C-alpha cells in the first residue's frame, strides 16, 4: 500500500500575522513556517496505517519554494519514507499546484493521495478536489480515518453529529479533516535520519506542467479592527437576580437579545 501526502508549508499558527508592505500580502520577514495543520493530520493518518502494516510506504510532496523542504523534513522525521520537492514560484495559482501534484501522483502511482482539507493560510480548499479532478479519481472529503478492507478502503468522514463510512477502491483522493491521534512528535533518531535524507527536486517543466491557470489577485489586505475593551458590571443578589440582570444587560447593553 502506498500513500502520497501533499503538503503545504504555511506561516506557523503561533505567528502574529502582520500585513506586509504594499498591503496585499502577509509580511513573511523572519516568521516561523511549518506544515499546515490539516496536512499534519493527513501525515498522521497515513502513518497510523504504516504503524498497522509496516510494508506501507508513505511519500510526501510539496509544490513551492526551497523553504518547503523544512515541512518535508518534518514529515520525514515523523516517519514518512520519502519526500519530493516540486520547485515552483510562491504565487503559483492553486490549479497549477494541483496539476503539478497530479503529475507527481501519476509518476508515483500511490493507492491513496491525501491532502489536508484546506491550507491554514489561504483556506481555499481548492487543491485537493482539483488533484482528484486532474487524476480522474474519486475523492472523499472530511476524512478522519482510513481502514483497509479487502481490496477496498473504508473511508470515515465526519458529518454533523456523527460520521459516514464510505467504501472506495484505490486509487482515491482523500481530504483529511483530522486524524485519530494528534500528529506524532518525531523521535530524535527520526529527526536525525530526516536531516540526512536526500530530497529530490522536480520542476514544473519536467512534470509537463505549464503555469497557465487563472490567478487570484489580492486587492487589499488588512487586519481586523482592534476589539474594544469589555465592560465590567458588578452585580449583586442571588443567582436568580443576577441572571435577570444579565439578561437585561444582554438586551440593553450588547443588544444580542
Amino acid at each position, binding site marked *: 500500500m502506498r500513500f502520497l501526502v501533499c503538503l503545504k508549508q504555511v506561516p*506557523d*499558527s*503561533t*505567528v*502574529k500575522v502582520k500585513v506586509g508592505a504594499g498591503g496585499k500580502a502577509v509580511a513573511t520577514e523572519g516568521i*516561523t513556517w*511549518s506544515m499546515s495543520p490539516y496536512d499534519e493530520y493527513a501525515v498522521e493518518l497515513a502513518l497510523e496505517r504504516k504503524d498497522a502494516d509496516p510494508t506501507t510506504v508513505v511519500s510526501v510532496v510539496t509544490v513551492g519554494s526551497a523553504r518547503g523542504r523544512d515541512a518535508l523534513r518534518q514529515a520525514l522525521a515523523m516517519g514518512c519514507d520519502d519526500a519530493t520537492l516540486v520547485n515552483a514560484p510562491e504565487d503559483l495559482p492553486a490549479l497549477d499546484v494541483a496539476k503539478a501534484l497530479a503529475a507527481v501522483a501519476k509518476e508515483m502511482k500511490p493507492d491513496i493521495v491525501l491532502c489536508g482539507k484546506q491550507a491554514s493560510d489561504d483556506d481555499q480548499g481548492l487543491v485537493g478536489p482539483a488533484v482528484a479532478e486532474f487524476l480522474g479519481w474519486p475523492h472523499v472529503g472530511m476524512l478522519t480515518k482510513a481502514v483497509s478492507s479487502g481490496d477496498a478502503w473504508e473511508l470515515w468522514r465526519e458529518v454533523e453529529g456523527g460520521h459516514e463510512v464510505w467504501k472506495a477502491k484505490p486509487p482515491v483522493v482523500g481530504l483529511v479533516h483530522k486524524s485519530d*491521534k*494528534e500528529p*506524532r*512528535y*518525531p*523521535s*530524535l*533518531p*527520526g*529527526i*536525525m535520519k530526516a536531516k540526512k535524507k536526500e530530497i529530490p527536486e522536480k520542476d514544473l517543466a519536467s512534470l509537463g506542467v505549464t503555469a497557465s491557470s487563472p490567478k487570484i489577485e489580492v486587492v487589499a489586505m488588512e487586519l481586523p479592527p482592534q476589539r474594544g475593551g469589555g465592560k465590567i458590571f458588578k452585580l449583586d443578589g442571588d443567582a436568580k437576580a443576577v441572571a435577570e440582570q444579565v439578561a437585561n444587560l444582554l438586551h440593553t447593553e450588547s443588544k444580542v437579545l
Partner: protein
Amino acid sequence: MTPPTQGIWSFVLLAVTLIAAAAFGYRVWHLYRLLRLGKDESRLDHPWRRLRDELVVYLGQRKLIKRPYWIRGIGHALIFWGFLVITWGSADLLLRGIVGWQMPFTDTVWYAWMLDFFAVAVLASVAVAVLRRAVLRPARMHRMPEGYVILGLIGFLMLTLVVFESAFVASRRDELGGHFGTPPPLARLFAPLIPTPTGGALFAGAWWAHVLTILAFAVYLPRTKHLHIVTTLFNVGFRKQTPRGQLSLIKDIENQESFGAATIRDFSWKQLLDGYTCTECGRCSDNCPALATGKPLDPQKIVLDIRDQLLREGPKLLGAKLNGTKANGDAATPPSHWVETKPEELWACTTCAACVEACPVTIEHIDKIVDMRRHLTLMEGAAPPESQRAMTNIERAGNPWGEPRDARGDWAQGLEIPTIAEKPDAEYLYFVGCAASYDRRNQRVARALATILKSAGVSFAILGAAETCNGDPARRLGNEYLYQLQAQQNIETMNALRTRKVITSCPHCFNTIANEYPQLGGNYEVTHALPLVRRLIAEKRIVLSEAGAGAPGREATTDVVAYHDPCYLGRHNGIYDEPRAVLDAIPGVVRKEIAPHHRERGFCCGAGGGRMWMEEKIGQRVNHRRIEQLVMADTKATKVASGCPYCLIMLEEGVGAKGIAEQVKPVDVLELVAARLQQNTTQGSAPN
C-alpha cells in the same frame, strides 16, 4: 578477656571465619560485577565535599535525623554508631580468638563504657523498631520478614555480648576476689546474678553464639536490603556533587544513536548502586506529592524496580558476556525494557525533589525518572500528547503557550523598560521567562519587579523578543534535544551581551540558567529576584512603608501571608530564608508557615517537571491538596505568597476550585513588595 578458643577451637574459628568471609566476598564480587553492567560515569569531582559528606551524612547520620523522623532517626543513628563501636569489638574478638592479637583501645575503660552504652542503646532502639513494625505499622513500610530477622540478629548480638561479658566476670570471681577491677559496667551489674561454676560454660556458649552470629550476619547482609550498611558508605561518597537541579547533559547529542534509559544497561553504575543502597524505608514515598494524590508514581518503586531487574537479569547478561563477545552476548539476551516501571508512573513526577531530600542514603530519584523519560520522548516520541503540543510550541514560538514570538516583550510596553539592545550597558539582564511574558497574571509580577528595580535605581534591561524559553519544561519532559537547542540560542544571545549578571523572577529560569547553562558554556552570575530584593532592602535602596506610595489613597493594611516554598527555589537551590526575610521586612505583613509542609518539606504545586503542560486526570490534583494543607495549617492567612509563576498559576486555580478565592489571594512576594514601595517611580505596577 581470654577467648574460649584454646587448641583446636582457634582453628575451628579460623575455618568458620574464612567460610563466612568467602561467602561475603563472593556475593560482593558478584554485586560489583552486576554494577559494572551499568554505564561509566565519573563521580570523583569535589573530593573535599565528598569527604565532608562521609563525615556528616554517613558518620553523622545527618539525613536520617530530620523532621518528621526525629525519633526513628535517632534510633537508627544509635544502632549505626553502636554498630561501628561494636564492630571494632567484634574484630577484636575474632583476632584474639584466632591469633591472639587485639584491636587497639579494646582494653581501655572508656571503650568498655562505650561498648556497654551502645549495647543498651542498640537494644532499646531494636525494641522500638520491632514495636513500630509490629504495632504501629506505618503505611509506608514494607513489613518484610527480613526486617525482623535483622532486628533479631542485632538484638541477639547485644544480648550475647552482655551475657558473655557478665559470665566472664562471674567465672573469674574467685581470682578477682570481691573487687572486679575495671570490668565493663554491665558485667559489674549482671555478674552477681551468675553463679561462679556456671560462669565458664555460659561465657563460652555466649561468646561462640555471639561470634557465630556476627559471621552469620556477614553472610546474610549482602543478600538483603541491609546491604545498605556497606553500600551507603560508597553511595554517599559518590553522590552527585553538581547542583541538585542540574540534570545530566547528553553530549554530542546529534551524533548519538540511543538516548535515555530503557534497560538496566542504560543506567550508570551509580544509579544501579542507588538500587543496592535503598533501605526500603519509604521516606521518599512518604513525601511524594504524586503518590500522596493517588498517582501511580512511587519513587521507592522506581529505585527498587531497577535493583530487582538488575538482580534478576544481570546474571544472564554477565553469562552472555562471558560466553561470547560483548556485542554478540548482548544481542543474544537483550535486557528487557524497564518492564516494571510504567510510563504513567514516570509522567506523574513533578521533579519536586521531595524524595531526593527525604532519602537518608542520597539516592537520586529524579535523574532516573528523567533518563527513562528521555527514552520515551527522544526514542519513541511517546511523551503525553498535551506535552507534545507544549514542546512544538517551544520549538516554533519559543514558549510553551504557543503565543507569538514577537509579542514576548509586549508586557513591558509603556513601562519604560529598555531592551538590552537599547541599553547595552545595563548592569543586569532581567530574564523574564515565558510565564511572566505571556501569562496575564504573571505579567503583573514582572511589572512589580520592574517597579522595584526602578525604585532601587538598579540598572537593568530585558531581551524582549530576543529571549526564548530557557528549555526547562522540554528538558524535564525528557526532550534533551529541544532543551539544548533552546539553551544554545539563549546562551548565544547572552554571551554577546556586556553584562554577565542575570535576574530571574522564575525559579525554573533561575535553576536552568544558573545550574544547567554552564554545561553548555553559558556562565552567568544569576540571582533570583527575591535574594536580590532582600539585598536591596538591607542596603536601604528601597524603602517600604505600610501604605506604600504607589496607589494614592491606599490605606495601611495588614496582610497575613502564608509562604509557599517553590521547589526550584527551596529544595533544588536551598533558597528558603531570603523570601522569608523579604516578607518579614515588609511593613504590615505578618508571615505564616504552612506547617508542617514548609521549607524542605514544602509540598509541590504540581506544575514542575513539565507537569504544567500535562493533564492531571488521575487522583486528586496536587495543587488542590496544597490548598487543603494551607487550610489545615489554620494560618488565618489572607494571602498565600510564592516566588514562582507556576506556583502562582496553580495556587490561583486551587483557591478557585476549593472555593476560597475570596478569603485567600495567591500573590508573588514581589507584588507585596511593590505595593508598599515608598518611592514608587512608575505607575506601571498594579499589585493587588
